[in-house]
């Protein structure tokens, strides 16, 4: 029976599917709302992405983005949706750790934890 998915494997897969779908749909809805607000206010402005200036500091860190979104700024709301999107795969990895633990598959609890540590280092090590 080696490698044949068990009932419990299927349950973890179903959970992961639901989690990913919810995360993506929710973030897409937030990005859409923020986008609508942004377009309503700035739709007529000219665009220029030829020169790289980098985002202003309030759109670069979590605290600034949350503040901008609460102030109902379109770009801030979009950025909040994108943050949620980035968090979705991270949440998936955390979910997998619990899923593998429930199956008593400690080798994979270990693998998933290593991935989580790398993800957190990537997200924190940059700021």
């Amino acid at each position: 029976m080696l490698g044949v998915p068990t009932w419990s494997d299927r349950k973890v897969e179903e959970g992961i599917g639901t989690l990913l779908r919810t995360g993506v749909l929710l973030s897409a809805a937030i990005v859409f709302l923020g986008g609508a607000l942004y377009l309503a206010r700035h739709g007529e402005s000219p665009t220029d992405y030829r020169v790289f200036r980098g985002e202003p500091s309030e759109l670069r860190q979590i605290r600034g983005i949350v503040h901008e979104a609460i102030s109902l700024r379109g770009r801030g709301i979009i950025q909040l949706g994108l943050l949620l999107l980035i968090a979705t795969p991270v949440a998936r990895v955390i979910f997998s750790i619990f899923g593998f633990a429930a199956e008593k598959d400690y080798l994979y609890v270990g693998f998933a934890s290593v991935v989580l540590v790398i993800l957190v280092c990537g997200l924190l090590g940059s700021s």
Partner: protein
Amino acid sequence: MNVLEFTALVWLGSVIAGFLGSLTGLGGGVVLVPLLTLFFKVDIRYAVGASLVSVIATSSGAAAAYVKEGISNIRIGMFLEIATTLGAVLGAFLAVRISTGTIAIVFGAVLLYSAYVAGQPRTKDPLDDVPDPLATRLRLNGSFPTPEGMRHYCVRRVPAGFSLMFGAGALSGLLGIGSGAVKVLAMDQAMRIPFKVSTTTSNFMIGVTAAASAGVYLSRGYIDPGLSMPVMLGVLTGSFLGSRMLFKAETKSLRLVFSAIILLLGAQMLYKGMAGKI
């Protein structure tokens, strides 16, 4: 062009990129960055940031469907993600330190290689042969549903696949793409995983890989909301349509058309990068 027109056009381009990327398993990012830089004259750093975000959306959206159908192998995915996330963090740190021209050249080379991969006839799915001891110990072997019932498969050459996946992750972090072509090389060619399993499992891993480098991109100001919004929503729409078609589409001619497009874009990226125009 004003913001409204720009947003509409970028959205439309992203729908097409997402659709083709999802159908061929190469990901939308591979055509998105050239599309944004060559046609919309977007600075490659903004393009890479928007592409990276869209890659997370595509991957997670499509993966949700595949995982529920039981095609993806979450153990193979989880194991190889160790390699891809490590590579992605490295790639993102490199991306903010090297010149845009160099990034364009590397991108061009990856596009040419992707065109070659996409143009290749699909390798015959391997027969169920002797299990590899390492793959067995790591519980990587699995089975997936086909019209003729469940089919079992064995995974081969784990260390080679793992190393290639590190490279795929580094390219993903450097270029803001899913690097589907390198993943195909690792999973189809080296590890001998059946095509449908490798495509969907690769899709599954891309989101985590991209999330590993997204923090670096965000803090460096590469992720612009005004640009990422139409790109993400467009690619998501396109890849959703593509994932609906995985079982019925005639992919052979499509892959040829797609590889021709990638070939042209790759040549142009190489030229612009070498001429210092990016």
